[in-house]
């Protein structure tokens, strides 16, 4: 088994002098600072020789006191070993530039685009450095830099200028005020690039082709995004994706809040997975603080997270059903009913239906109420039975089979290359589950199976979800059996959270895949940087290549089977 120390020593011998500083902390994480000109070589070496085939993201940090930008690349492996390599590259604040990894990892594309538009770090060799989340008028303002003073802007609405365009609709522009121009917080010179519309119109080749806009308001998924498909008749030739319609700047907002105030914000990252987002964030901060939650708290967290996984899978499958059937398709409504039952279990503990803010640094907010065990066991029994029924229904419904079989096939190698995780990856015959891979909480003591399917099509993805519901039921039952009594908060957690300077990365298995939080602290009350690495971001990036050559009706089937959540993509 490869350990982080092995990788480090191999790196040091292969690239003498390229590694500036390095440490292993905790045992499975390798932190290293690499010379800027060697980063591509190091990553290539790691990918080819040490199985680092999973690029799980990049984070840009503004070290304003040192006059530096840091870009941290997160590399991991799809099950060959459990080491996470966090490779740092430094670049000066004026004229920052880093070598792009898009040549090595296909899915580095979006992560680097995001860092470019938010921080203004140029990526040499990136093929399409276009804005991703921001609207055009904010380009060049680099909102994630620490010296960005244009906002918070309490009256964005007041500055909006309405103009009626030739087509009769209203356009808005947010022109800068005098003061802002003087302060230099708004861009005068925007970077030059073709806009989204121009880029897609360049692709229209023939008379019979047209672009069909699905979105931003469309019945495809909960949440606005723009999916433009270039169609020839009923066939999709190419797909373009524009996200950022609900970009809230969560990562920047969290920099302006104290650590504890950050927890409610993580809820809103992806509203279907509020509890696991809490867990990931709190886990990262716990690592910084060097504390661990007591056993009972860990069990409570596990129970709630699995319950939350059940409700999320129900909703995801239900939404998917509305897409291939319609909103009057009864199983969709039955699933919502089942989900309500699960929600009432969660609600009896956390008091909220969707946004819980329940996990705390070193514990949980409150204990399980009386009668929780019986209530949950009853619900689980019902859920089991219902899920079996759904599985039977879908496997006997020939229209359903016809619609789903062989649609949107992701081969195992493609799925890894595109960087997806969670149920879509497992449906492509890759048993990659953080609960097994990088066990957090007490999952290492639990007996459960990692569900996989061979086919990799939309049907397999839904089946994986339904099977995971059963598996979660099993985990919860074990937890309810074994849960010890004891405190629910760790001893000695300070009221004011002030971690030592340092960085931590903590990853958990979200309902949709690998969710990681990268937190940087400088010893003050507020984090320097919080980076959320979400699974849906990866799905979205993988969506356009999947859609080429399918029918229009399959577009919704594929997009739906991914179980996307726009809010987490946009953040």
């Amino acid at each position, binding site marked *: 088994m490869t350990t982080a120390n092995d990788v480090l020593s191999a790196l040091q011998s292969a690239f003498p002098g390229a590694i500036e500083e390095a440490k292993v902390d905790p045992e499975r994480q390798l932190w290293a600072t690499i010379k800027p000109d060697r980063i591509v070589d190091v990553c290539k070496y790691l990918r080819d020789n040490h199985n680092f085939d999973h690029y799980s993201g990049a984070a840009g940090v503004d070290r304003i006191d040192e006059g530096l930008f840091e870009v941290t690349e997160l590399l991991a492996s799809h099950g060959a070993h459990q080491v996470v390599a966090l490779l740092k590259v430094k670049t000066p604040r004026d004229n920052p530039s880093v070598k792009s990894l898009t040549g090595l990892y296909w899915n580095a594309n979006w992560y680097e685009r995001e860092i470019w538009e938010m921080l203004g770090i140029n990526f040499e060799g990136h093929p399409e450095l276009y804005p991703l989340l921001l609207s055009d008028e904010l380009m060049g303002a680099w909102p994630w830099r620490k010296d960005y003073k244009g906002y918070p802007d309490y009256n964005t609405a007041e500055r909006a200028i309405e103009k009626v365009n030739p*087509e*009769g609709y209203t356009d808005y522009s947010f022109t800068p005020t005098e003061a802002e121009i003087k302060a230099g917080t708004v861009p005068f010179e925007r970077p030059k690039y073709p806009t989204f519309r121009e880029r897609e119109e360049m692709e229209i080749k023939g008379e019979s082709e*047209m672009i*069909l*806009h699905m979105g931003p308001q*469309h*019945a*495809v998924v909960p949440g606005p995004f723009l999916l433009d498909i270039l169609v020839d*008749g*009923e066939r999709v030739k190419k797909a373009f994706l524009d996200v950022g319609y609900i970009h809230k700047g969560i990562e920047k907002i969290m920099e302006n809040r104290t650590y504890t105030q950050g927890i409610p914000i993580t809820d809103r990252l992806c509203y279907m997975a509020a509890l696991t987002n809490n867990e990931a964030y709190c886990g990262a901060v716990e690592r910084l603080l060097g504390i661990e939650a007591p056993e009972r708290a860990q069990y409570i967290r596990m129970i709630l997270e699995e319950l939350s996984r059940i409700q999320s899978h129900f909703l995801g499958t239900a939404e998917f*059903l*509305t*897409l*291939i*059937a*319609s*909103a*009057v*398709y*009864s199983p969709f*409504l*039955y699933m919502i*009913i089942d989900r309500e039952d699960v929600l009432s279990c969660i609600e009896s503990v956390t008091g909220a239906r969707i946004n819980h803010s329940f996990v705390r640094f070193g514990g949980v907010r409150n204990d399980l109420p009386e009668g929780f065990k019986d209530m949950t066991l009853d619900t689980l029994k019902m859920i089991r039975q219902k899920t079996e029924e759904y599985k039977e229904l879908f496997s006997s*419904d020939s*229209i*359903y089979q*016809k*619609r789903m079989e062989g649609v949107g096939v992701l081969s195992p190698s493609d799925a890894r290359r595109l960087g997806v995780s969670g149920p879509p990856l497992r449906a492509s015959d890759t048993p990659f589950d953080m609960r097994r891979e990088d066990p957090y909480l007490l999952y290492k003591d639990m007996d459960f199976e990692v569900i996989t399917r061979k086919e990799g099509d939309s049907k397999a993805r839904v089946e994986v979800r339904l099977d995971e519901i059963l598996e979660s039921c099993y985990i919860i039952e074990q937890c309810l059996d074994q849960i010890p009594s004891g405190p629910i908060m760790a001893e000695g957690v300070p009221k004011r959270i002030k971690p030592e300077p340092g960085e931590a990365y903590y990853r958990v298995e979200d309902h949709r895949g690998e969710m990681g939080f990268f937190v940087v602290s400088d010893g003050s009350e507020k984090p320097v940087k919080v980076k959320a690495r979400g699974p849906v971001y990866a799905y979205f990036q993988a969506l356009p290549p999947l859609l080429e050559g399918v*029918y*229009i*009706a*399959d*577009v*919704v089937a594929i997009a739906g089977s991914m179980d996307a959540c726009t809010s987490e993509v946009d953040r």
Partner: protein
Amino acid sequence: MVLSAITEFAAQEPKIYGLIIGLVAAAILASVINVVAMLLVWLERKVMGDFQARYGPNRVGGRWGVLQLGADAVKLFTKEDVIPRGADKPVFVWAPIVAVATTMLVAGALPFGAVIIDGKEIPLVVANMDISAFYIEAALSIMAISAFMAGWSSNNKYSMLGAFRGIARMIAYEVPMGICVISVAIMAHSLNVVEIVQAQSIWFVIAQPIGFVIFAIALITDLGRMPFDQTEAEEEIIAGYNTEYSGIRFGLLYFQEYIVMLLGSILLVHLYLGGWNGPVIPVISFISPMIWFFMKLIIVLVALIWVRVSLPRFRIDQVTDLGWKILLPLSMVNLAWAVVVGLYFA
């Protein structure tokens, strides 16, 4: 006295008399059909609610929510009527009217049950044509044209896709449906719906089970209901051909769907389920055919709603595949069967 005056007038001016009677009958028919269609929308919402573990409308008009559709109609008919820029205005305006007019064409030839007076069965039909089965079949397919008018004139990509899908589907399914009607006619030795009903001493659903299934599938396709609602698949192409319609025009298109559903089910009942045939109920023998007819009709309607809430949607290529590759050959088999059986029993 009034009666005698009318008969006198009828004798003197038969043409004008016929015209007046026709207009009155048409007015009665149109209003009855519209009211029944509204009740059908309400029924659908209620029954759908029952299938889905909810109540359906239950606030407007008592605990059954009967007036819900009245409210919907008032709202739709007083809403702003938007004709989008770039739309082909005359076609856009006429499409809903054509749609509703064709349903009235169908209604004119379709018997709505029968009554027994003096031991004689009198079918309730406005125009008792010789070829009514074929005429109804033809008039039903005009609907696809109105849908195409609506979709094409709206200047909207979704609408256009919906319209194309509608035409592709119509071509694939009108043929098997027509063949089924022919098979029925061969067995009944008539193309007149009234005579077809009277010929069913054994219901044709028993005599031609394959034909019944094909006809039912083709009918659902014609109605554009699940699992064949590709023309207005909400999740793919917003609302299909009526995406750009609003207010009263949308109201017409919306009610038209239900009128067609009603008429189509009536046709199904007549062709395969023995229309108003049934044992005479002693005390109320006067309307006993009506009772049988409505019972069958309601069963068919509820079955249609049941199908709608429990099946996912086909993809458009699968729909045309099904039509051309499976239903068409099967309907030919059914035709052969009908010819053999028909000749044998004749």
